[in-house]
C-alpha cells in the first residue's frame, strides 16, 4: 500500500499524560505453535508495556509475531508462557467466560475487515458491546464519540448501505463507545483507500489526544505508524527496536534495516 497523505504533527508532549501509567503489559510472553520439528516460536520472551493515553504501534515484517502479540494482549489468544495484564488483571488466569466479559467491558477492537454485524444498524453496531452486557450506553459520551467520527447522519443505516471508510468509522466508534481501558486495532486501514485511511487514523489520533484513549495498533504501513506516539518493532518473535515520536521516514529506515 502506498500513501500520499502526510503524517500529522507530533503530539505536544509525548509521555507526559497520566504520568506514564501502564494500560497493558506483556511480561516474558512466549507463544509456541506446533511441537518438535514443526515448532514455531511466534513470541519469544517478549516483555513490553503499553502506556495509558498513548498511541502505540506494533510493526514488523510478515511472520514477526506482531499480530500474535496483539491477539494475546487483547485476550483473543492464549500464551504458552509468561503473563499478560490489562490494568491489574492477569489474562492468563481467566477462563473463556471471564475473558469474553473482559473483552466486552475493557477492550475495544478495530479489525482490518468485517468489523460490523450486517443485520444491525450503525448505531446498534456502535453500542453492541454494551448491549451484550445489558448496559445502557452513556448518552453524552456516545454523542461525543459519534461526533468525533462524524457519523451522526449515518446511525440508522445498515453496513451494506455504508462505504468502506464509513464502516470503519463505525468500527472505531464501537471501539471507543464503551470507554475501554485499551483499543486494539489490527491493520484498520488495510482495506481502505488512502484518504479514508488517513481519516480513520486521524480519528484515532484525536481519540488519544482529546479523549485520553489508549490505543495499540498493528500495521505494516510506515505512514500509518507515523500517527503513533511510539513504534515497537518485532522480528522473529522478539522486540528488536523501539522508536518514540516516529515519522514515516524514520519508520521506513528502521523497516529497511530489519528486512535487510
Amino acid at each position, binding site marked *: 500500500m502506498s500513501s500520499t497523505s502526510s503524517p500529522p504533527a507530533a503530539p505536544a508532549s509525548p509521555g507526559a499524560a497520566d504520568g506514564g501509567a501502564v494500560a497493558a503489559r506483556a511480561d516474558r510472553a512466549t507463544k509456541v505453535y506446533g511441537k518438535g520439528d514443526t515448532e514455531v516460536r511466534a513470541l519469544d520472551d517478549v516483555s513490553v508495556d503499553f502506556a495509558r493515553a498513548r498511541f502505540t504501534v506494533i510493526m514488523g515484517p510478515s511472520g514477526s509475531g506482531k499480530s500474535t502479540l496483539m491477539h494475546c494482549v487483547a485476550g483473543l489468544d492464549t500464551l504458552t508462557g509468561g503473563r499478560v495484564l490489562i490494568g491489574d488483571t492477569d489474562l492468563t488466569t481467566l477462563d473463556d*467466560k471471564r475473558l*469474553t466479559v473482559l473483552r466486552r467491558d475493557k477492550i475495544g477492537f478495530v*479489525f482490518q475487515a*468485517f468489523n460490523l*454485524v450486517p443485520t444491525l444498524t450503525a448505531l446498534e453496531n456502535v453500542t453492541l458491546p454494551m*448491549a*451484550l452486557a445489558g448496559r445502557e450506553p452513556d448518552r453524552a459520551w456516545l454523542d461525543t464519540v459519534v461526533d468525533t467520527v462524524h457519523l451522526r447522519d449515518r446511525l440508522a443505516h445498515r453496513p451494506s448501505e455504508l462505504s468502506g471508510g464509513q464502516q470503519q468509522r463505525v468500527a472505531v466508534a464501537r471501539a471507543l463507545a464503551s470507554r475501554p481501558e485499551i483499543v486494539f486495532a489490527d491493520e484498520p486501514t488495510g482495506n481502505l483507500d488512502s484518504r479514508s485511511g488517513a481519516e480513520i487514523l486521524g480519528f484515532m489520533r484525536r481519540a488519544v489526544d482529546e479523549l485520553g484513549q489508549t490505543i495499540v495498533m498493528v500495521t505494516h504501513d510506515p505512514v500509518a505508524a507515523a500517527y503513533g506516539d511510539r513504534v515497537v518493532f518485532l522480528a522473529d518473535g522478539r522486540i528488536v527496536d523501539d522508536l518514540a515520536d516516529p515519522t514515516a521516514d524514520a519508520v521506513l529506515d528502521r523497516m529497511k534495516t530489519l528486512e535487510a
Partner: protein
Amino acid sequence: MLRIALKGLLARKLRLFTTSIAVLLGVAFMSGTLVLTDTMGRTFDRLFADATAGTDAAVRGKAVISSDFAIDRDRVPASVVETVRRTPGVKAAEGFVAGYAQVVGKDGKAVGNPGMGAPTFGRNWPTVAALNPFRLAEGTAPASNEDVVLDRYTAKEAGAGVGDPLTVLTERGPVRVRVSGIATFGDADGTGGATNVMFTSAAAQRWVAAPGAFDQVGAVAEDGVSQEELRERLAARVPGNAEVITGKALTEENQSTIRKSLRFFNTFLFTFAVVALLVGSFIIYNTFSIIVAQRGREMALMRAVGASRRQVLGAVLVEAVAVGVLASVLGMLAGVAVAAGLKALLAGFGIDIPAGGIVFSAKTAILSLVTGVGVSVVSALFPARRASKVPPIAAMRDLAVESTGIRRRTIVAGLFTAAGVAVLMVGLFGDAGAGAVGLGAVLVFFGVAGLGPVFARPVAGLIGAPLPRLRGMAGTLARENSMRNPKRTASTAAALMIGVGLVAFITIFAASAKQSIDESIDRAFTGDFVVDSGSFGFGGLSPTLAADLARLPEVEAVTGYRIGQAEVEGATKFLAAVDPRTVERIVDLDVRQGSLDDLDATSVAVEAETARTKGLAIGDPVRMTFARTGDRTMTVRAIFERADIGGQYLLPISAYEANFATQFDARVFVAKSDDVSAADARAAVERVTGPYPNAKLQDQTQFKEAQAAQINQLLALIYVLLFLAVFIALLGIANTLALSIFERTRELGLLRAVGMTRAQLRTTVRWESVIIALFGTFLGLVIGLFFGWALVRSLQNEGFTSFVVPPGQLLTVVVVAALAGIVAAIGPGRRAAGLDVLRAIASD
C-alpha cells in the same frame, strides 16, 4: 469435472451424511412398509396354502353380493356332503363350519379382539385327515358335543389344558364345554393370531352355523382325477345356488382376499412414507440452495476457467446422486428394522397381524433406490440449475446467487396454491375421490412453501418481536438472523409446515368427529345403557343377551342393534336392524310418516333425506339384494328424520333374521324402568351381561367416552407416524442453521471478539431456530385449519355436524414445535459457540 465434484464431496463427509438422513428416513419408512406388508402377505399365503393343502375341490354358496369389506355367502345344506361323497372320483368329502366363537379365558375375559384384530373362529373338527390342516398334539378329537379341541395358541391364551372346562361365546349364547385335545396348525402353534375352537360337526352347526347346514364342503379326489375334472363333475350335481371351486383356486382366492385387505395397511403406512419423503425433498432443496449460494464464487471460478454450464450442473447433481444413493441404500436396509418397529407399533395399537421371517423383495430394493435417488436429484435440480447460471464474472465480485426472481416465483406459487385448493375441493365435494384430495393437498403444500418467502420477513419479525426485550442483544440478533434471508427461513420452515399441517388437520378432524358423535348420541340416544360388543362385522353379542335383558323387571325396553350389508338399488350399503316395537323408547328416530309398528320381515324404514332424494313414499317398493336370500322387494312402512343411529335404511330384526346368515347384535340398547334407580338398574343389567365377557356395559357418558377413546387411539397412531415427518423437519432446521453458521463464521467471530459470551451465542442460535420452527408451525396451522374445515364440511351429510378447533391441543402443537426448535438448535449452537475466535476473524 466429475473427479473435482467427488473430491469436494468427500471433503464434506459430515454434511453429505446429515443431508442424506433427511431422505434416508423417508426411504427407510417406505422400505419398512414394503417389507412388513410383503412379510405379512407371505405369512398369510403359507397359512392359506396349508389350510387348504389337501382340498381338491370345495362346494359353497354362490356369492350374491360382494364389497371391499366382505363377501357374504349363504350356507349349503348338509345333504350336499352326501351328494359330493357319491360323485365318482371323490375319495372323501366333509362339511365345514367356520364362524364366530370366542373362548373365555381362565381370567374370565374373552380371548382375542375380533373387532380390531384377528378373527376368533369356531369350527368343526374335520374327521377326514387329508382335509384337516390341524394335527392333534395332546388329548383326543372331540367325541361328544361337549368336547372341543383348541389350537395350542388359543389354549395358551385362554390358559386351558386338556380336561379343563371352558366357556365359549357363540351366536346361541355362552356354551359350557370341556377341552378334549390340543392341536397344532401344521408345525405352527396357531393360525397367526386368530383363535380356533373346534367342536364336533353337530355341535359346530348348532352353535356356530345352523343345524343341517355347512359353510363349505371340501372334497379329496381319487388318484388320477385332476382338480379341474373333479370341479366339473361336482358342478353338474350340486344345487343351483351352490358353486364349485378347485382347491388351487380356493387357495389363491383366500390369498388374494387377504392381500386386498392388507393393501389398506400398505396404503395407510405408505401415505406416511410419502409425507416423510416430501419433507425430505424440501430439506434437500434447501440444503442445496444454501450450498450453491455459498459456493457461488467457486462455481463462477470454474466457469471462468472454462467449465461449461452443463459441467457445473453436473457437478452439483453428482452430489445429489451421492446423497440419494447413500440415503437409499442405508434407508433400504434400515427398512428391515423399521418393519419390525411398525409391526410392534401396530400391535401396540391392537392391530396384531402375523408376520414371520423377513421378506425383502426385489421390488422393495428397486423402489427404495429409485425413490431415494429420484427425490434427491429432483429436489437438487432447481438449485443446480441456478448454480449453472452463475456468470463467470461473478468470480471477480461478491455476489448473492440467491436473490433472483422472487416475483415470478410468487406468482407461480400463488397459482400452485389456488390450483391445489381447487383440486382439493373438487376431490372433497365432487366425485374426483381420494386421489384428487391427495394431489390437491400436495399442491397446497408446495404452493404455500413457494409463497413462504413473501411473508417470512414480516411473520418472523412478528414472532421475534418480544425477543429483544426478553433476551437483549442475543434476542435482537436471533430475530434479525431469522429475517435476513426470507427464502432460507421459508423453505426451512416449509419442511416443518407439512408435519404440523397434517397434525393440526388430523387434530381438528378428530375433535370435530368426537363432538359430532357426542351430539349425535345426545340427540338420538334417550336410553340409559349401551351394551357394546366392539365388533362391527365378525361376531358380536348373541341375541340371547338382549332376550335375557328384556326379561328384567328393572328394564323397560331393550333392542338389539345389528349391522349388515346389502345392495340397495344397485349400491352396497350398510344397514342397521332394530326391534321396531321397543326402539322408539330408547332411540329418538323422530318418525315423521308411517309407523315402526307396521314393519315386518318384508319392510323397511327410510331416513327422510334419503326418501326425498330417491322419491320414496310410504308403501313404495325398495329393491334390496341380500347375500343369503338374493333379490327381495321391501316395502317402505316408515320415514324417520334422524340418521344418527338409524342410518339411511333401517330394518326390523325380523327382516334381518329372514335375510342374513348370522345373527349378532353389535350393540344392545337399554332403557331402564322409571321407578328403578340407575344404580339398581345397572346392577341388574350387569348380572345378565356377566356371562358375556365380550359385552361392555356403558351408560351414556361411558358410551361417548368409548367412542372418543376409539378415535383417540387412531389419533395417537397417526401422531406417532407423523412424528417422523416432524423429526425430519427438525433435522432440516438443524442442517440449515449449521450451514448458516458456517456462512457467518466471521460475523460470529467478530461478535465473540467484542464480547459475546458462548452462552449468548447459543441463545441467539436457539431463538433463531425457535422463530423458524414457529414460522413453520404458523404455516402448518393455517393449512391444517383449512384442510380440517374442508374435510369436515364435505362430510356434513355423513354425520359431521360440528366443526371444532380445539385451542388447547393446537397450543400444545405450538409449544412442542418451539421446544423442537430448541432441540434442533443444540448441535448448531454448540458448533457456533465452539468457534475459534481467532480463526473466525482472521481475514481471508
